[in-house]
């Protein structure tokens, strides 16, 4: 049982590490801010979930797991929000997506 949990946890941790790596490469290689944020969001979502769940499996049923769960919830709430705030701030500041042809009306973020 513990071996199974260990294997599962290492698989999750490796996949999480890969997600972070992919996110990092994407954030460097993508052409403009919005696509970079899109790539970096892989780190926030998949990376965070996989790594934290992986660590939770290592921690077992303990207080640490509850704390990790709280961290995960916090990350899942805050990182999309900060991405949203960043993107809308960039749009308001006049950063346009590089591939964009049509004009976005001035009203907004949507």
């Amino acid at each position, binding site marked *: 049982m513990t071996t199974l949990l260990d294997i599962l946890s290492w698989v999750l941790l490796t996949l999480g590490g890969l997600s972070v790596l992919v996110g990092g490469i994407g954030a460097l290689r993508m052409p403009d801010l919005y696509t970079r944020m899109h790539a970096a969001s892989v780190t926030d979502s998949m990376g965070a979930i996989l790594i934290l769940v992986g660590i939770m499996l290592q921690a077992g049923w303990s207080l640490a797991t509850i704390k990790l769960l709280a961290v995960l919830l916090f990350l899942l*709430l805050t990182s999309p*929000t900060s991405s949203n*705030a960043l993107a809308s701030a960039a749009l308001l500041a006049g950063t346009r997506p590089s591939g964009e042809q049509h004009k976005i009306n001035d009203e907004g973020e949507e």
Partner: protein
Amino acid sequence: MIVIFGIFLLTLLVITAIAIVRTDNLFVAVMLMGIASLLIAGNFFLLDAADVALTEAAVGAGISTVLFLSALALTSERERARSSNKILSFTVVTAAAMILIYATFDKPRFGDPEAPAQTHVAPWYLEKTPEYIDIPNVVTAVLGSFRGYDTLGEVFVVLTAGIGVLFLLGSGAPLGSLPQEQVNEGLRHHLIPRVIGRVLIPFILLFGLYVQFHGEYGPGGGFQAGAIIAAGIILFALLEGEQRALSVLPARVLLGLMAFGPLLYGAVGIAGIVLGGNFLDYSVLSSDPVKGQQLGILLIEAGVGITVTGVLLGIFHAFAARGR
């Protein structure tokens, strides 16, 4: 393994420091300084200094970034081009670096059990804390009780810093005099941050209280809790507008909080004298000396937390009031 992590984090720290020096965009510099703080906090944590790491993360990466940004809102985003003597500054920096590197030769090696820090008073603290104070977190015992004078001094330093900033920036124009349109509305038109912020702020405050009162058992204490609670209220101010935050905690209340912390701390010290002990000797606060120590630490940590919250919020509002 830990050494490798430490070297990795320190390398990133050096890279960040070089980037901070090289950029002339102050906004970028502020963000990089937040990252630098987070890196050094990670490094502190690797060295098992969880209390310091928590403080550095809360104050360095959290609050100071916000305060720097508030200051940036008052000035320009670009650094002014300098025409100073580059050779002179290079010489000074090189000489200072040489001296610092030379000084490290005298330092004990990493993890050396014979290092002065391990042989001087630390063993005594570790040995006597269970007997005198009986709390698991020795750092809190040292900070609150054994070295209570130092912490009292730190609280007064925080108070002095707050007073200094308020003197320089003023505690803000009278609020009623501004026309309503000019009042900073924060991000009230942005639905998503507001909703999430509303969900999170109570938990941030709760976490702050946890850090405050759990400091005797785990990493935490007044300094960290004060920074976290202040961060929660600053988040409220950013989302709902500074005026709403000021109507929750008016400037006069903040001034009261700033002064109340050192007052509480000092009062606990005086109470020690009145009850027949020494200044800041908590043993006499209760019939059981150990209980008395715990009560004293709880009270002075509360004083520290109250002051730090008050000062940080006061500084934030002073900056925001200048921006109006």
